[in-house]
């Protein structure tokens, strides 16, 4: 599928050519890829339970958007959020430990794959209910305005979520109240087994911004530089002018909806076709052509990232389970009896 982008690219001023930035993007995407491959393995080995949704294939969208943020900016995500958490700077150890259900995990083993969280990283959660986090993200946007600070909120969700009422309620008030939010729709063309064309009257999700007189953009979500450029622009628009926007990144998940999805509704050819446009390989090729990266360096980055993931697994495996005596801890802020 060829992604028709909106003809607004020319407006972006950011030039993405310095080697350090590109290397950082490359490394982050590869970390997510290797982390998720390991996650699949650990799920099959029953070290990880519950539902488990991977980000493989969507790395450019994740890294391209989140890398445009500052550390104090907020990210709200969904149940498909391991990569988002890593991109926001959460230690791979803490993420893997959460998937293992351990006390050292981001949510102390209480949340699991679908409910990562880090106050420190302003990663304000993975939520397992489709569309649920968008109104909550508006609350952070409101707090920013209220407190007169200048952070930005990024609210990330799938194409399926844009058909639910909460999406429309959130976009409406974000525009009405000038909330500094970038709504990022990760359009991977499917909501579980249902293709976007069977679920949404408007398949070009960016157009839904029109209903709220909001900036709407569409970008090739397999091209990390394109995603980053447009994200820089929309983040600046949120930060400087307190204007929300909707960014649609068209991308693809290489695996099924979750680890338990047999993925019978998509053709093998379709998956293969998307893989020929793999974001990580493309950026590697681009950097090689620009003489910023050699095959040896690619190999070396891979080894480093792989070692980081191995270390995370070891850490998770060796970490303790939560203590049963703490079962009732945190039901309330003040530890009253339930």
């Amino acid at each position, binding site marked *: 599928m060829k992604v028709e982008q909106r003809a607004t690219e020319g407006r972006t001023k950011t030039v993405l050519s310095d080697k350090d930035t590109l290397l950082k993007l490359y490394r982050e995407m590869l970390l997510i890829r290797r982390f998720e491959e390991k996650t699949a393995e650990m799920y099959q080995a029953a070290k990880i339970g519950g539902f488990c949704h991977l980000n493989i294939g969507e790395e450019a969208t994740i890294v391209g958007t989140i890398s445009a943020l500052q550390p104090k900016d907020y990210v709200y995500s969904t149940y498909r959020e391991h990569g988002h958490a890593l991109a926001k700077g959460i230690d791979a150890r803490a993420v893997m430990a959460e998937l293992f259900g351990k006390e050292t995990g981001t949510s102390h083993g209480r949340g699991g794959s679908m409910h990562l969280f880090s106050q420190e990283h302003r990663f304000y959660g993975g939520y*397992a209910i489709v569309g649920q986090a968008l109104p909550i993200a508006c609350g952070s946007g409101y707090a920013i305005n209220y407190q007169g600070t200048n952070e930005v909120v990024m609210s990330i969700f799938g194409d399926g979520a844009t*058909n639910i009422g909460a999406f429309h309620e959130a976009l409406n008030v974000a525009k009405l109240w000038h909330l500094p939010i970038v709504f990022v729709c990760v359009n991977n063309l499917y909501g579980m*087994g249902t293709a976007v064309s069977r679920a949404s009257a408007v398949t070009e999700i960016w157009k839904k911004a029109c209903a709220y007189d909001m900036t709407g953009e569409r970008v090739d979500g397999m091209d990390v530089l394109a995603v980053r450029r447009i994200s820089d622009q929309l983040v600046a628009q949120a930060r400087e002018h307190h204007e929300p926007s909707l960014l649609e990144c068209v991308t693809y998940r290489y695996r099924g909806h979750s680890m338990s999805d047999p993925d019978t*509704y998509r053709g093998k050819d379709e998956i293969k076709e998307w893989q020929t446009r793999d974001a990580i390989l493309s950026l590697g090729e681009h950097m090689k052509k620009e003489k910023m990266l050699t095959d040896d360096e690619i190999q070396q980055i891979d080894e480093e990232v792989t070692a980081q993931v191995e270390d995370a697994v070891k850490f998770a495996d060796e970490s303790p389970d*939560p203590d049963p005596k703490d*079962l009732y801890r945190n039901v309330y802020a003040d530890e009253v009896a339930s």
Partner: protein
Amino acid sequence: MAVLAMRDALNQALREEMKRDASVFLLGEDIGLYDGSFKVTRGLMKEFGEKRVLDTPIAEEIIIGTAIGAAMSGLRPVAEMMTVNFIMVAMDQVVNAAAHIRYMFGGGTKVPLVIRTPGGGGHQLGAQHSHSHENWFAHVPGLKVVAPGTPADAKGMLKSAIRDDNPVMFIENEGTYAVKGEVPDGEHLVPLDKNEVKRPGEHITICAHSRMLIVAMDAAAELEKEGISAEIVDMRALRPLDMAPVIESVKKTSRLITVEEGWRSYGVGAEIASRVYEEAFDYLDAPVARIGAAEVPAPYNKKLEKIVFPGKADVIVTAKALLGKN
């Protein structure tokens, strides 16, 4: 009689009712092309076409709203909510609309609608995917609420629910879909307002529904070995709540345990206990014991989760304690 898994018994009920009555149609997320996320609707789109098996967007409020309007307009919709957790998004439609429309319009219309929805925990799915909310719905006049625990009842009650002229909350449990049992072929109707004794006993009464019925039956088998004879009352009809078999049983055994998968506070067991105190207080030899989930949002960690949801051991320990046999 065939031996069927719960999901296949439900599938059979849907198929038979769709064949019998052209006004029956199904709607929900991924119920057609994908065959349903728990495969209850497997093959039905192929057999009946896209008009009668409608794949919807992920939009619970529109699913229930559409179902209500269609029901008021001559159809008999069966809406699937992928899990009970997601029906929260549509609570306004369920409670403020489906349950109340007939009454507030002075009986001018009816809402023959079935909402099928699985719930339950124990699969490490965390706080947003693990709970049982039967009591939320059973609290509301205007809804009928049922929660079968055997494949035969699942088939018979779903067929009755589809033919019923009221909105029926048909509560399933993810942990029961693969459970097998004998299911009568063809026309098999189980009333929506009758609970029944699933296992006769002498010493103690245990009330349970849905997956907890299975847990209670297992516990009873174990208790039997220790000389304790438990009578199990299946509470498949939660609203209207059929208390007759419970009262009768308590008059015989004088001791009662209620078991539910949801939280105990304000729960199904609380209601049953109150009714027993009102109607059979003099027969009780001990306070009613209520078993439910620990009062925390479900944790992901497997060991913690095990502590949270009630199991066979909880029933056994409680039964022995009530009988002074620990």
